[in-house]
């Protein structure tokens, strides 16, 4: 009897082994048909695939490949005309005349001036509840489209005028020299006429005009795109398609890259950041990126008010008491780069030698001296708290920052972790923060304006934008206005550098580091590079 039982168990075991042994083969990498399909890591889009309703990378990855805009960006972030033939501003950058090339959507219908104007109006119209509507706020007629109760949804922006099928004009409500760059953002993509018949269906099965064509979206599993043979723009695909594979978490994807089942991912699990550059089973990439990570102390916080002598001294002292190089090395294992300004090394016009950037360099002696000077004006012995969302892996960073401040400056500092990103952002928008809080910025388009105006101009304060610390400085605002009316991008960038020097003195927020663009690709992938958005350049990859 006993023998029988054992034999049964052994048979079951060997059956399992047998099944196991044949499991390694038979995985379909899309190679069978002789076509080169890139399998890329992705997350499930949080919204339907409508350009104007896409504001996160889940939808942004496929969206960027499906829709060609008026201008496109090179991997480094330089803009050049794509669908646009020419973009001509008037003297004070309040009106643009845009001419477009002959171009077709993948359903065969032509891209006309109206494809743009109607799409922009649709997104700006509050009735249609599109998440990126505020991007259109500098176009004339935007304010008239903000009362959802009285709107039907098809009202047009009064600032957009179609001249003919290949030409339209844009009237701005204020000068906007960055407009020709802004229109490279996904929200400014043209939409075919079929969109308006059924936006909901379109969001599940988009029709675009970009380097790739939509095939299918299996929710929570994958999004498949194939090369659009009719596309003749700046980014013609070198492969035959991209399959975005949606993963539950990055560890699983990393294991798949090691095993060669997945071709590329633009992140590395935290546990592997130490080793991924030495791992011979994959190709690693790690360079300074465009994400700027900072923390903000509200400009109206007692003893820390910007523009006052005491506040400025304290802000500079805190900034100098933080050893950013050590943070980058110890906390991030080298997948971050020490911050030296308020934009990023990938932003056009970046400089690592701005006047005042010594305020971002570690200098414990000077920091103590400045803090003592501030105490001489008005004594401060309260506790400075650092709030962050605990669901994003920021804990080691803020533990280290608080420790450095305690040790280098001898002040009473503490962390204040908040459980979720939602609750954290909520407290910020309701202005409930009574101390420092984590802030970060991923640019929507490669321009210093996108960092500076959106985060520090008075017009973006008090809940009207992303100026979460409510920093207000007329001198800074004046430079923003001057840059908007600049004749050339170079001139604008010079003005943005001057504006940054004001920020480096006032320190409305404290730049800590730039998040690196880092990722991995499977062995045998050619052309793996990452762009200014910290995303792989999918079009260039081949096997």
């Amino acid at each position: 009897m006993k023998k029988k039982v054992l034999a049964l168990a052994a048979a079951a075991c060997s059956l399992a082994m047998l099944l196991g042994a044949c499991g390694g083969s038979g995985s379909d990498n899309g190679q069978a048909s002789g076509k080169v399909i890139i399998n890329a890591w992705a997350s499930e889009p949080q919204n339907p695939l409508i350009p104007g309703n896409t504001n996160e990378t889940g939808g942004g990855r496929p969206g960027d490949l499906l829709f060609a805009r008026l201008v496109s960006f090179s991997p480094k972030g330089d803009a050049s005309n794509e669908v646009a033939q020419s973009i001509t501003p008037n003297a004070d950058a309040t009106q643009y005349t845009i001419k477009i090339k002959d171009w077709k959507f993948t359903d065969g219908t032509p891209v006309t001036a109206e494809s743009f104007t109607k799409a922009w109006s649709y997104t700006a119209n509050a009735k249609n509840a599109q998440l990126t509507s505020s991007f259109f706020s500098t176009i004339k007629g935007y304010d008239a489209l903000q009362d959802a109760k009285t709107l039907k949804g098809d009202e047009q922006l009064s600032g957009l005028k179609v001249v003919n099928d290949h030409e339209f004009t844009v009237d701005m409500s204020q000068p906007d020299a960055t407009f020709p760059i802004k229109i490279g953002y996904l929200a400014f993509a043209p939409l075919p006429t079929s969109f308006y018949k059924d936006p909901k269906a379109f969001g599940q099965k988009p029709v675009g005009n970009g380097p790739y064509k939509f095939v299918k979206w299996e929710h929570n599993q994958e999004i498949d795109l194939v090369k659009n043979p009719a596309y003749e723009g700046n980014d013609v695909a070198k492969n035959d398609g991209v399959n975005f594979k949606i993963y539950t978490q990055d560890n699983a994807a990393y294991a798949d890259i090691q095993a060669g089942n997945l071709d590329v991912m633009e992140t590395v699990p935290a546990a592997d950041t130490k080793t991924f550059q030495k791992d011979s089973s994959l190709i690693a990439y790690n360079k300074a990126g465009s994400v700027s990570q900072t923390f903000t102390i509200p400009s109206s916080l007692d003893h820390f008010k910007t523009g006052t002598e005491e506040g400025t001294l304290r802000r500079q002292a805190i900034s100098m008491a933080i050893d950013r190089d050590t943070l980058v090395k110890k906390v991030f294992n080298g997948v971050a780069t020490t911050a030296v300004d308020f934009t990023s090394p990938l932003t056009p016009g970046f400089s690592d030698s701005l006047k005042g950037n010594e305020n971002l360099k570690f200098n414990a002696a000077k920091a103590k001296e400045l803090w003592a000077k501030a105490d001489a004006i008005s004594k401060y012995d309260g506790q400075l708290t650092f709030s962050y969302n605990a669901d994003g892996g920021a804990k080691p960073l803020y533990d280290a920052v608080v420790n450095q401040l305690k040790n280098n400056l001898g002040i009473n500092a503490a962390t204040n972790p908040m459980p979720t990103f939602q609750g954290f952002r909520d407290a910020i928008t309701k202005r409930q923060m009574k101390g420092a809080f984590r802030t970060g910025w991923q640019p929507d388009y490669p321009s210093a304006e996108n960092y500076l105006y959106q985060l520090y101009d008075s017009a973006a304060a008090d809940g009207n934008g992303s100026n979460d610390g409510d920093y207000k400085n007329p001198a800074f605002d004046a430079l923003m206005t001057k840059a908007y009316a600049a004749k050339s991008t170079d001139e604008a960038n010079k003005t943005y550098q001057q504006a940054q020097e004001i920020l480096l003195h006032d320190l409305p927020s404290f730049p800590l580091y730039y998040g690196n663009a880092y990722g991995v690709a499977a062995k045998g992938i050619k052309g793996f590079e990452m762009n200014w958005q910290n995303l792989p350049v999918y079009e260039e990859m081949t096997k």
Partner: protein
Amino acid sequence: MGKYLLRRILQMIPVVLGTTLLVYALVFALPGDPVRAMFGDKPVNEAVAAQIRAEYNLDKPFFIQYLLFLRNALTLNFGDTFAGQPVISEIARAFPVTIKLALMAFVFEALFGVVFGIISGLKKGKWYDSVILIVSLLLISVPTFVTGFVMQYFIGVKWRLLPVTAGSNPGFLDLLMPAMVLGSVSMAYIIRLTRSEVSSNIAEDYVRTARAKGMSNRSVLMRHILRNSLIPVVTYLGQDLGMLMSGAMISETIFNIHGVGFLTYQSILKGESNLVVSVVTLLTLIFVVTNLIVDMLYALLDPRIRYA
């Protein structure tokens, strides 16, 4: 029997209603505003936010929201997710995968658990009994995610024996390793449970009597020892099927399986109350039904139990 069954089924109604209310309240009480969070770090356009809130009834008070959900649920309309997907189709996508995974894990743990348990229990003190005991102790004490990562690295990445992750539309082989990981802890418990039951029953008087009457070894084992030993095991297995369905999350995230666990986790993070409540209600139903089936099975295994 029929009356008993009917009573048990009627009892499900308050259980399900209570769960939905409780879960709806819990999701409602989560800190943060899901609509604001949709804008991320970017400026919130209040007109747009109000429009989205109205669309998902989020502008109404809690109780009205709940009643609206219930009313729609009665007509099998569970609402839409923020991504514009009907909740029902999200569920229809996730459940089959998890059911497949849970059933595979269930068969794995039941088969190997009982077989190894019997081997161990019949021959206490032999070397293979010790090996089985040590392995089962190891499986119980090491957390599932450790077992998962270790197996994934060696069996998947290093030796290439089984697929590293499951991905979309997983087949039998894709789910084999996740199912083994998912079932491993329960298997260890079943081994120990079966072992102790078998070894105590073997010394019972009725076993000795049966042997004395000249009954064959096989009949003694099947009719007397096993039948009596399996009652607690069946209880455990019945409970466990529900646990496998709802507890597959760790295994699902490690092996990239887009099942119920991952769906629930994601929707809690995004504050998708309709989805969370629908999934949890369904899981509750599965729990209640498997419990009922277990109770019915008792009657088959133990003639003394009769339901009136």
